[in-house]
Structures are given as structure tokens and as C-alpha cells.
């Protein structure tokens, strides 16, 4: 976060778009509460306001149209029928797209943009459209527009003398306008002479506190154009009698009067007020102002004032009952990350301290150990607290996914709806960010390949609208994201056939249902017969799987023919720490994630069985499991005194088991994850690094990719399939 105002705008847009989405989802669900409609109106309005400040014209124009339709809805001039709701949903999606384009660059989808604008226009009455885009009813250029370069305007070189007669009506004093300030503003424009005309002032006894008796005659010599002089009086138009006469320029005067006339007859002021103003001109300025001014002046009409006072009170009373949101604090992400790093250091520091105390050879360290334990617990507390700051609800992510499903449905001609659950589940911010692409892909896939066409669903005895359920929950220290569709399920014969065609499995392979389903994740697998414009973008589910494993997570699929498929993604709660088993391999200390380890065992020679030339299997209670030597997979060489004698039994996503051979195991501990991004390229078999108690760096291994790199394990897997087939 650089803290620039434009950054704030885009951040705020995210929140506003979220609010819009949320509101529309509520409306879609049948909640037509006026406050919901109002909230959406305000959100879109704020986007427009901010966009205007940064000159984002496309965004302003679209938000304006969108907002106008909402204004119609909240004024009860439009019914929220299904067709309109769908249009509003699509418009909201497009608004998000426009914000993205404004922020990240890129092209807006012009045809789509125009289609939506036209569709929205159909809901906007003609005059409404005209009115809102009309500039102020001034004859000349609208003063506010002119002011951009005040002071820097290429002013006419010669000076002009303006004689100004300014006589406030009493109404002006109720609006907080002060003649004195107006004169100060005039004085800035040039040479000003002010003469007070107090002729109308009655005797002291006849004086009415609320009346306006004073008038001023001003002479202004300035190089500024007339429009700037007039602009000074912009706020008091209609609240005073004003004449501005350019010296010896009758024509200009006539123009000015015409302009003022035009202004006075502009829609807001009822005609009567113009007459009244005209009448007042001829009479004493103290004449009662009877014309229906736009709103009653408080002092003049106590009854009306009372009414008015009570109205907002009732409203505010209602508002106050609504519990306000919990107070929050906005913090730059970088600061939190610095804190997280510092806490990580603190934990490493603790283990270093503990190790050094252990090395001290002091007989009684009990007291120190107690204190150290306290240190450790405090560090953990701080760590949990800091991690909690990074945790965010998955709600915004899920809301974006609703849009993905809508777009995908529209593109494929299917009807589906996304149902979300557990939106308030909190997950690390980075996890949420990096989940966006895989989820998008899975959902597109679910719409494209999972959900059937409405007719097909009907003939299968299902409701026409497909349902995709996206849920998030916490499960014993992990986050579980589930995507469940009620579509046709994985077409297993087809999947298997493709896998055979692509040489992913031997022709005679005998696979379990689960194994076939998992073929979807195999690199180079894609079920789309032709490149559909949705999921078939050249990336397969293997990319999804890589993204998930890149986050230290796992993904599973289960499917029931005719009933649908479920993808389950299990992710660590945080990316910053994990529980690991510290092992040594060829003189190097490494860490294996605890989550992937099923059991550990010390091997003896009689447990090892050779298979072929260089394959080895470990026999565990009668079962044979391929051995994968970690040193070999990482290209490390053992010294003559070292040998792999300890096995970590791990299980892969496909349910395949493998024994990772390491030299020794030490202990199990929480480690701080240090990314290797930017330090080196991707290393097969290595997920990240960590810093151990002695200050040394240790690689954190990725068992899946180690197994993939191991010839034995891969070969065994194929062999098993072959043997199953025969």
C-alpha cells in the first residue's frame, strides 16, 4: 500500500463492490428492503464520485447509469423483477471489470459495455437522463467548470470596471452566507471599493431582527472575466438582488441579466419566487417574502420548523438502534509482515537460546528452563495474534466466485447458481489471494463440464438449475474449501480413454474409481474435446493442483456418476509457520511437513526387498511400499559413513504410499517458513526453507515432488497398475 489517494480509491472500490454484490445477492434472495437498495445506491454512487475525481470516464458513465436505475428502484418507480435483477447482477460484474481495467490497465469489453448501457437505459426515463447530465442552467459557461485554473486563467489583458449592486434578502442570512466573505473573495480578483447603503435601515424601534435592511454598492476593477465575478455570487443566487454592470458595456450587461434570468427560472425555483423577487424589487426590501421558497425558513414558521425537527429525529432514533460496526484499524500490510518476520525471528531466537543453554554444561538449568518455557509461550501468543491480523474472511473471494459462475453460465448457456457457506471463515490473506485462480478454474470447470444443460437435467429428473456449493470451514488446524456440484459427475470411461490416448496410463491399466478421478489432475490431461472458450484455455486441473500444493495444501476429488463431483481443498491456516519433522539427509538438515507423514520407522535390512535392478521396496507389516531415497531425488551424495536407515511413510494425493529414506530423524517442531522466491528458481523436491535453532538454513521438502522425481516410486506405481490389469 503506497498510501496514495488513488490506491485508497481502489481499495475502497473493492469494499464498495463487495457491498454492492452483497446487496444484490440479498435482493436476488428476495430481500427487497429499502435499506438494502439504498446501500447499493450509495456504494455505486461513491464509486462514481471517486472515479470522477480521477477522471475515469468509462467508470463514471457506467456507474452513473447503474446508479440512476437504482435511484428509480428506491423511488419505487421500478419493480425489481427477475429480469432487472439479472441485469443489475451483470452490471455489478461489469462495474468490477471496469474498476479492474482502471486499476490494472487492459481493455474493456466494448460490446458488452454497450449492451449493458443500452439495457440499463431502457429502465431510465427520458427526462431523468437529460436532467442529470445537464450543466447548471447558466447562460454562460458554468462557473464551477471555469474555475479550474483560477489565477492561472489566461485572463484578458485589459482591466474592466464592474459596478455591483448587492442587496441580500433575509433568506440569505439563514444559509450561512456572509456578505463580508463574498467581498473578500471579490477583493482577491482585483481592486474593490465597498460602499454600504443603509438607507433602508428603519429607526431602532421599528427594526426587526430577522429582516434584511442593508445593501452594498461595489466597484470592482479586475482583469478577470465576468463569469468569474459572477461565480463569486453563485451561492447567493436567488437569495439577493444582484446587478453586475460592466463599465460602458451595455451589451454585456444585457447578457448578464439574461444569464441571471435564465438562472432564476431554472427548474428548482418555482416561478412564483421569480415574481416575488421581481415584486420585491419595486417595494421596500423589508416586504414580507410570501412566495413559496423551496423550504420554509425556520424562524418564520415555527410550526414547520417543529415538524422538520421531529422528522429527522425519528429517523435518527431508528438509525441509532442499529449496532455500529466494530471499530477497525487499517494497517499497511507491510507493517504486519514486518511484525510477522520479527516474531518468526523471536521464535528462532528462542530455539537458539535453548540450544546454547543446553550446551552450557550447567548442572541445574531448571529455573532457566522455566523462564525459557514462558518466553516460548509468549512468543507463540504474539505469533498467533499477529497471524490473526493477516486472517481475513473468505467472503470477498466467494463473492467474486459468484460472478465467475454467472459469467460461465452465460457463456455456456447453462443455468446454475452458486450457494456459498462459511463465508466468514478466516484464512491468511495470501492464501485467499492465491486461491482465486484455482477456484476460478474449478468453478468454470464445474459449469462447463459438471453441470448438464437444462434439458438434460430435466430428463435426468433433476431441477433445471444446477447448483454449485462453495463452502469453507476450519478443520483441526487446517482450512477446508469444498466445491460441490450436482452435475453429471466425472465421466470415468471417457477420462480413462483420454488418459490412455495421451499415454498417461498403459492401455490395460486397471484403475479404481478414485484413481480415474485423480487423472484429472495429471499434467497434460484435459477432457475438453474441443477448446471451449471457458475452461479449455490450455491449462488443466494440474495447474490447479500445483497452485494448491504451492500453498502447502492438498486437493482431492470425489465423484458420483449422475450426482455430481466434489473437490476438497485442504490448506494450512497460515503460510508462515508449519509443523515439521527435522531430518538429516547426506549431512544436510531438512524439514518434512508433518501433515504428509503417516508414520516413521527405523528400517532393518530384512525389511528391504530389491525389485529389479535398482528398485527397492520396504515391507511394512506384510505390505510392500516403494522406497524413495531423498538424497538421490535431490541429487545429494552421501559420505561413506552415512546411510539411509530411517523411513518416513508418506501418502500422496492419489493414495499412493511411499517410504522416504533419510539418514536420521531428530525432532518435531514448528518452523518458520521462508520463501525461496527471488533467492533461486524452483527446486524440484523443495517447497521452501526455514531457519533452525542453530541459525542454519534448512530446506523444507515437498514429498510429492520428491516421489515424482524418484524413478523407483514412479516405476512401482506403473508396475502395480500393470499387475492389477493382468
Amino acid at each position: 500500500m503506497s498510501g496514495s489517494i488513488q490506491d485508497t480509491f481502489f481499495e475502497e472500490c473493492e469494499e464498495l463492490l463487495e457491498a454492492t454484490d452483497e446487496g444484490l445477492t440479498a435482493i436476488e434472495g428476495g430481500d427487497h428492503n429499502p435499506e438494502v437498495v439504498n446501500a447499493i445506491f450509495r456504494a455505486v454512487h461513491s464509486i462514481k464520485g471517486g472515479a470522477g475525481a480521477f477522471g475515469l470516464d468509462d467508470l463514471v458513465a457506467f456507474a452513473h447509469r447503474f446508479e440512476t436505475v437504482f435511484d428509480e428502484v428506491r423511488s419505487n418507480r421500478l419493480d425489481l423483477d427477475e429480469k432487472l435483477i439479472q441485469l443489475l447482477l451483470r452490471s455489478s460484474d461489469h462495474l468490477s471489470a471496469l474498476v479492474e481495467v482502471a486499476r490494472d490497465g487492459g481493455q474493456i469489453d466494448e460490446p458488452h459495455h454497450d449492451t449493458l448501457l443500452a439495457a440499463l437505459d431502457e429502465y431510465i426515463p427520458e427526462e431523468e437522463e437529460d436532467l442529470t447530465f445537464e450543466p447548471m442552467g447558466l447562460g454562460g459557461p458554468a462557473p464551477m467548470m471555469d474555475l479550474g485554473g483560477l489565477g492561472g486563467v489566461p485572463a484578458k489583458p485589459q482591466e474592466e470596471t464592474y459596478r455591483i449592486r448587492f442587496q441580500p434578502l433575509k433568506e440569505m442570512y439563514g444559509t450561512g452566507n456572509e456578505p463580508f466573505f463574498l467581498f473578500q473573495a471579490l477583493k482577491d480578483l482585483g481592486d474593490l471599493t465597498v460602499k454600504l447603503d443603509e438607507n433602508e435601515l428603519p429607526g431602532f424601534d421599528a427594526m426587526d431582527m430577522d429582516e434584511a435592511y442593508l445593501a452594498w454598492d461595489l466597484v470592482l476593477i479586475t482583469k478577470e472575466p465576468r463569469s468569474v465575478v459572477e461565480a463569486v455570487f453563485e451561492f447567493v443566487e436567488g437569495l439577493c438582488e444582484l446587478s453586475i454592470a460592466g463599465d460602458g458595456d451595455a451589451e454585456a450587461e444585457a447578457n448578464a441579466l439574461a444569464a441571471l434570468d435564465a438562472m432564476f427560472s431554472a427548474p428548482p425555483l418555482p416561478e412564483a419566487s421569480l415574481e416575488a423577487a421581481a415584486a420585491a424589487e419595486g417595494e421596500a426590501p423589508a416586504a414580507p417574502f410570501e412566495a413559496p421558497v423551496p423550504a420554509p425558513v425556520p424562524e418564520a414558521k415555527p410550526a414547520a420548523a417543529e415538524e422538520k425537527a421531529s422528522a429527522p429525529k425519528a429517523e435518527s432514533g431508528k438509525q441509532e438502534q442499529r449496532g455500529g460496526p466494530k471499530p477497525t484499524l487499517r494497517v499497511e500490510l507491510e507493517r504486519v509482515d514486518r511484525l510477522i518476520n520479527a516474531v518468526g525471528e523471536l521464535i528462532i531466537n528462542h530455539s537458539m537460546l535453548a540450544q546454547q543453554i543446553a550446551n552450557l554444561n550447567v548442572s541445574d538449568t531448571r529455573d532457566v528452563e522455566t523462564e525459557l518455557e514462558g518466553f516460548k509461550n509468549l512468543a507463540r501468543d504474539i505469533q498467533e495474534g499477529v497471524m490473526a491480523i493477516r486472517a481475513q474472511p473468505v467472503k470477498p473471494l466467494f463473492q467474486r466466485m459468484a460472478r465467475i459462475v454467472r459469467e460461465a453460465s452465460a457463456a455456456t448457456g447453462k443455468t446454475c447458481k452458486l450457494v456459498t457457506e462459511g463465508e466468514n471463515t478466516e484464512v491468511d490473506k495470501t492464501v485467499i489471494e492465491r486461491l482465486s485462480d484455482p477456484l476460478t478454474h474449478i468453478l468454470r470447470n464445474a459449469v462447463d463440464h459438471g453441470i448438464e444443460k437444462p434439458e438434460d437435467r430435466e430428463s435426468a429428473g433433476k431441477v433445471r438449475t444446477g447448483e454449485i456449493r462453495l463452502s469453507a470451514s476450519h478443520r483441526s488446524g487446517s482450512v477446508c474449501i469444498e466445491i460441490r456440484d450436482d452435475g453429471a459427475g466425472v465421466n470415468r470411461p471417457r477420462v480413462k480413454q483420454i488418459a490412455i490416448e495421451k499415454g498417461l496410463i498403459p492401455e490395460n491399466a486397471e484403475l479404481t474409481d478414485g484413481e480415474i478421478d485423480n487423472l484429472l489432475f495429471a499434467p497434460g490431461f484435459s477432457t475438453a474435446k474441443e477448446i471451449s472458450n471457458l475452461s479449455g484455455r490450455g491449462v488443466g486441473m494440474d495447474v490447479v493442483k500445483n497452485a494448491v500444493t504451492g500453498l502447502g495444501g492438498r486437493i482431492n476429488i470425489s465423484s458420483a456418476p449422475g450426482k455430481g463431483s466434489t473437490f476438497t481443498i485442504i490448506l494450512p491456516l497460515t503460510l508462515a509457520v508449519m509443523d515439521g519433522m527435522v531430518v538429516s539427509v547426506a549431512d544436510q538438515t531438512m524439514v518434512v511437513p508433518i501433515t504428509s507423514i503417516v508414520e516413521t520407522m527405523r528400517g532393518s535390512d530384512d525389511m528391504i526387498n530389491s525389485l529389479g535392478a535398482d528398485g527397492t521396496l520396504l515391507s511394512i507389516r506384510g505390505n510392500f511400499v516403494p522406497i524413495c531415497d531423498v538424497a538421490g531425488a535431490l541429487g545429494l551424495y552421501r559420505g561413506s559413513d552415512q546411510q539411509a536407515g530411517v523411513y518416513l511413510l508418506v501418502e500422496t494425493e492419489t493414495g499412493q504410499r511411499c517410504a522416504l529414506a533419510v539418514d536420521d530423524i531428530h525432532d518435531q517442531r514448528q518452523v518458520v517458513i521462508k520463501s525461496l522466491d527471488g533467492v533461486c528458481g524452483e527446486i524440484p523436491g523443495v517447497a521452501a526453507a526455514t531457519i533452525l535453532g542453530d541459525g542454519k538454513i534448512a530446506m523444507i521438502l515437498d514429498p510429492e515432488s520428491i516421489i515424482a522425481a524418484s524413478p523407483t516410486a514412479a516405476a512401482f506405481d506403473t508396475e502395480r497398475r500393470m499387475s492389477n490389469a493382468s
Partner: protein
Amino acid sequence: MKTKVLAIDDSRTIRNLLAATLEEAGFEYHCAVDGREGVDMYPDVDPDVVITDINMPNLDGFGVIEELRGHGINSKVPILVLTTESAPELKARARGAGATGWITKPFDDASLIFALKRVTGAAA
């Protein structure tokens, strides 16, 4: 003495824009995130001028003007409304409620300062 501005707007972007411009120009800037907060803050801040948005949750801009003016004692404090369009009926309604003037969004620094100048006499 710096001129005190109380800005009431639910948009963080607009608040930041106002803050940047006003603080740069030497005004003392206070802000509230909705109409209710603005009215509540008013006595404490005791501003020389109020700038308020129209469309806000928890009391809109008209409500702000009416409540501030409704106290009677505040008939003097200038209140400028922020409007997106220069829609005449909005201005008329705001003025009817007692607004002093208006600022059209998007505003630039010069027009904002000029508007403040005309209602407070202060350039800062």
C-alpha cells in the same frame, strides 16, 4: 488561527482528497464518516465551515443540514454540500434546508478553495 473544516462523507476516497487539498492549503481538517457522526462531532470540533456529502448512511446530507440549522444557534456556520452532478433540484433542496453553497464532484483544488473562500473569507 487555522480555519477549521468538518468534512462529512462516507467515501474514504473523497475524505482523503479533501484532507490532502485542505491540509495542503493550511486548513485544519476534521472528518466524519456519515451524517450521524458528523452531527455528533459538530459541537466538539466547532468548525468554521462544514462540507457534507448528500448520499450517506445514518443520516444523509439534508438531514445534517437540517439538524445543524435546526439547533437555531447554528444558522451562521457555512455548510457546503458535495454533489456529484450539478443537478439544480439537489442544490435547491440543499439550499432550502439551509445549505450555504455547494461543491460539484469531481472538484479540483482551486474550486474547492474558492468555494471555501466565499463562505468563510479564508483561503486557509
